[in-house]
């Protein structure tokens, strides 16, 4: 017990020392952003892959961390599943050096992936270890994007441990928004205030017909800042099939939305995408009758 305590104090001291040291040297520090949601299947991994790719495309040094130990998927979405040798657990346990585990992206030389382990579970790493890892990566990368697992257990606490900022992904469904609300509460109690919201898979036509919650409805209820809205897009499925993030497809609406979100992360002000539904037949009819 006593010994454990002592060790912990030493660890904290080391971290503090590193932080101070860095400040002294005046190194520019990157930023760690966790992408989380509570509910599974709302698009965390797709979001992480696309934002990371868009940021790298803009010339930034980016590393993506998959913290979904036991159920890794970011590697597949990025199309890098065949290149994995070491993973995050190997790094934390000292089986390899951090650089050995980082996989360079196929398309961008400034984009890297740190994959999760597939055969271990979430307890294989601790929040403290995660914090150290993020600190170390921030020294070299402009953006460290952490893909959080679903749920609110250990994996969640691991993922948020080293984060400076948080992005919450939701879809316009009661269940997803409810879970997002819970996550926002948990983030706040972990001192990650003002998370930014992404509403994913919105279907403009259904919203127009009053059969889907609108952006305002969700933002009102959750009372957080919106950083982007991503329309439902079949091209996401195609891009996931190929392992090529949709931001690379200039014809993809979702890709366009993710590119805009990446710009906002960099601090630029970009208008929300125009999601108006235009019905070609109706438009023609309208013109014919002379109503605009």
């Amino acid at each position, binding site marked *: 017990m006593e010994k454990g305590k002592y060790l912990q104090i030493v660890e904290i001291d080391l971290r503090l020392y590193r932080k101070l040291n860095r400040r002294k040297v005046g190194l520019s520090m990157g930023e760690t952003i966790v992408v989380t949601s509570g509910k599974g299947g709302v698009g965390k991994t797709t979001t992480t892959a696309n934002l990371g790719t868009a940021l790298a495309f803009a010339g930034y040094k980016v590393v993506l961390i998959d913290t979904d130990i036991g159920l890794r998927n970011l590697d597949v979405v990025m199309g890098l599943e065949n290149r994995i040798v070491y993973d995050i657990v190997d790094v934390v346990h000292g089986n390899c050096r951090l650089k050995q585990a980082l996989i360079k992206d196929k398309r961008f030389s400034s984009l890297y992936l740190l994959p999760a382990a597939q055969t271990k579970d979430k307890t294989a790493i601790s929040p403290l270890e995660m914090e150290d890892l993020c600190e170390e990566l921030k020294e070299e990368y402009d953006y460290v994007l952490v893909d959080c697992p679903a749920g609110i257990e250990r994996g969640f606490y691991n993922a948020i441990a080293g984060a400076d900022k948080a992005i919450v992904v939701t879809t316009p469904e009661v269940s997803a928004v409810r879970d997002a609300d819970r996550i926002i509460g948990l983030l706040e109690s972990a001192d990650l205030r003002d998370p930014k919201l992404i509403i994913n898979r919105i279907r403009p036509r259904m919203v127009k017909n009053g059969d*889907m919650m609108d952006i305002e409805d969700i933002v009102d209820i959750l009372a957080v800042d919106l950083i982007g809205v991503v329309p439902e897009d079949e091209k996401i499925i195609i891009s996931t099939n190929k392992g090529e993030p949709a931001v690379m497809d200039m014809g993809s609406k979702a890709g366009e939305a993710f590119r805009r979100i990446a710009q906002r992360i960099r601090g630029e002000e970009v208008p929300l995408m125009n999601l108006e539904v235009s019905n070609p037949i109706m438009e023609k009819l309208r013109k014919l009758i002379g109503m605009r």
Partner: protein
Amino acid sequence: MLWELLYRVFGRESSSSRMNAKERLRLVLVHDRASISPYLMNRLKEELIQTISKYMVIDEEGMEVSLDQDDQEVVLVASIPVKMIKRDYMDNIRMRETS
């Protein structure tokens, strides 16, 4: 106007499930937020005691504050046993009213 009519007939589906979703979400979140946060309920209780104590003496031990939910709404239910109404406060008010 004719267009409006046509549009309404052909363009829109009958009832909107969006409002349905919004309302259900609102209700479930009232309950979620309150039940995850005993802290909130405790703060509310303390402030209630403060306010009510200005007017009456209450039995703090026997006080109960909770949220009740049926499928229509969420209701804040407070059961607060009153031991005594404070006379001085009543007199003060009466004096203020007559003057």
